[in-house]
């Protein structure tokens, strides 16, 4: 067995892989937050709850309807995304003329309601979700054994993040979206239905969170608190990255996941706080965030 900095190689790589997986979730969640914030000017505090709903949705599809993992990967985001669109249409859209803080308070309330209801219905102990047959087992990479499902999560997350980036930066739809973020009345004057664009953006961001939830279901047990555990860290990630750039939030998400993984090897007690420490350093040196545009 070879050693790196006095640590067995497989242990180090194992933690880096775990970090990459956490990072994949940070990236997908902060990406959704950034997209929603860009269009709606709202920090979606319910993001964690919707992520949790994605996981529960796939669990329900499997246990009540018998629909497996791979169809769930498409179906659950669609269902939860539709739920998000209903939320936006009925509740959130009433706030656009108010101070941004009301959006934060409202979505925080939504998160409490959603989590409370799920806790009532399913308790908080967590439900198991099995890894699909084809992704079980592990692959020998030469320097370590990688559980196939974990590799799959990282791969899919990278693809999804990159596709989101491509849609927003390289397509006409994305160009319209970015234009509406900059100056909504002007884009509306060109005949674009901006309110519908906003609704779809929210739905898209929510679908992304739900997709992350489905991916997370086999790794973490499906429980009502799984979203909250993530989202507090994701807010720190958003502060570190700044919400100005899509690619920025993806890179920040993955990087912080890896940093967290490495901390777990070298200084386990600090692993829960290291992301926040990075945030402190960023605030001291570059308050607008690593990729943020305005202060």
């Amino acid at each position: 067995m070879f050693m790196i900095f006095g640590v067995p190689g497989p242990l180090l790589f194992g933690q880096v892989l775990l970090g990459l997986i956490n990072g994949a979730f940070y990236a997908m969640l902060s990406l959704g937050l950034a997209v929603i914030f860009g269009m709606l000017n709202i920090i979606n505090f319910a993001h964690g709850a919707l992520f949790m709903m994605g996981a529960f949705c796939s669990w329900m599809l499997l246990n009540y309807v018998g629909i497996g993992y791979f169809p769930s990967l498409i179906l659950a985001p669609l269902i939860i995304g539709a739920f998000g669109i209903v939320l936006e249409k009925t509740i959130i859209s009433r706030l656009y003329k108010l101070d941004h803080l009301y959006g934060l308070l409202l979505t925080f309330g939504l998160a409490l309601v959603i989590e409370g209801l799920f806790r009532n219905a399913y308790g908080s102990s967590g439900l198991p979700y099995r890894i699909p047959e084809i992704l079980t087992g592990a692959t020998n990479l030469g320097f370590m054994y990688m559980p196939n499902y974990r590799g799959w999560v990282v791969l899919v997350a990278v693809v999804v993040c990159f596709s989101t980036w491509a849609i927003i930066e390289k397509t006409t739809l994305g160009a319209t979206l970015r234009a509406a973020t900059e100056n909504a009345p002007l884009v509306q004057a060109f005949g674009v239905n901006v309110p519908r664009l906003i609704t779809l953006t929210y739905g898209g961001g929510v679908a992304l969170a739900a997709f992350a939830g489905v991916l997370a279901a086999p790794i973490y047990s499906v429980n009502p608190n799984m979203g909250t555990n993530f989202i507090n860290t994701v807010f720190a990630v958003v502060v570190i990255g700044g919400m100005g750039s899509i690619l920025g939030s993806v890179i920040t998400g993955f990087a912080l996941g890896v940093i967290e993984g490495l901390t777990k090897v070298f200084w386990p007690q600090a692993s829960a706080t290291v992301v926040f420490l990075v945030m402190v350093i960023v605030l001291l040196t570059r308050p607008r965030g690593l990729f943020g545009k305005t202060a």
Partner: protein
Amino acid sequence: MFGFSRSQTIAFWIMVAIIVISPFFLYPVFLMRVLCMALFACAFNLMIGYVGLLSFGHAAFFGMGSYITAWTMKFWHLDASLAIVLGGLTGAGLGLVLGYLAIRRSGIYFAMITLALAQMIYFFCLEAPFTHGEDGIQQVPRGVLFGVIDLANDMTMYWLTAAIFIGGFLLIHRIIHSPFGQVLKGIRENEPRATSLGYRTDDYKLIAFVLSCMLAGVAGGTKALVFGIATLTDVNYPMSGEVVLMTLLGGLGTVFGPVMGSVVLMAMENYLAEFGAWVTVTQGVIFIICVLAFRRGIVGEIGNLLKLRL
């Protein structure tokens, strides 16, 4: 001398009368909980109502104040007054450090940063040995006040809590109506103008934040003394959410709103306690209703109806 208007003076004396009479009809321990939370909410309101900054991490100051008071009471056997003062100083010290970081951003970033920093404090409390992790610091003695008054009796403890609450309440009111408080309001309304008038707005915000955190620490310390326990619940983010909700429900930026909000919310939690997560659901529903239809809060609406500033 505290800058009360006529209507506020009347409301204040009504509040004092209620505080004095209620322990003879209601369970004092419940009332003490209400008073502690009310002081916590008033401290929080100082930031959101008069500086316009929403802190989503006030549980950190409340919880750390509670831990320090509990620890010094239990292991150093300090006088109760000293332990509570130490709780307040802990809140202030922590507020100075976290506030220095957080006031670099405003608006929703301020909310996210305070939330994240408070989460860091939570993880610290989870790991640090002095907090006793999941168990918390239990069986904290209420001790003796000024070396003579034994606080073990619920009624004695109630009068102390009431005195601390009224003292804190008047202090906040004095701060708001001082020249310093006027500058704070000026910053809230138009920060660039306050800057152009020569005020170091960051310093003002930081001082207000530290004062708010100090009172949150006092509230936490008093709570630890009342219940004889300091746990992770006090320092975790649902507590931050709860104080936001109390203030929102009572009325952001009103003088009596946080007190009203705390009374209503504590009463509700008391009755719903046996229904488990329904408390959370109800809290969420109140948040949504307040934001959508009821942004002035209870006291704000009453004031609007009577055309008074309460």
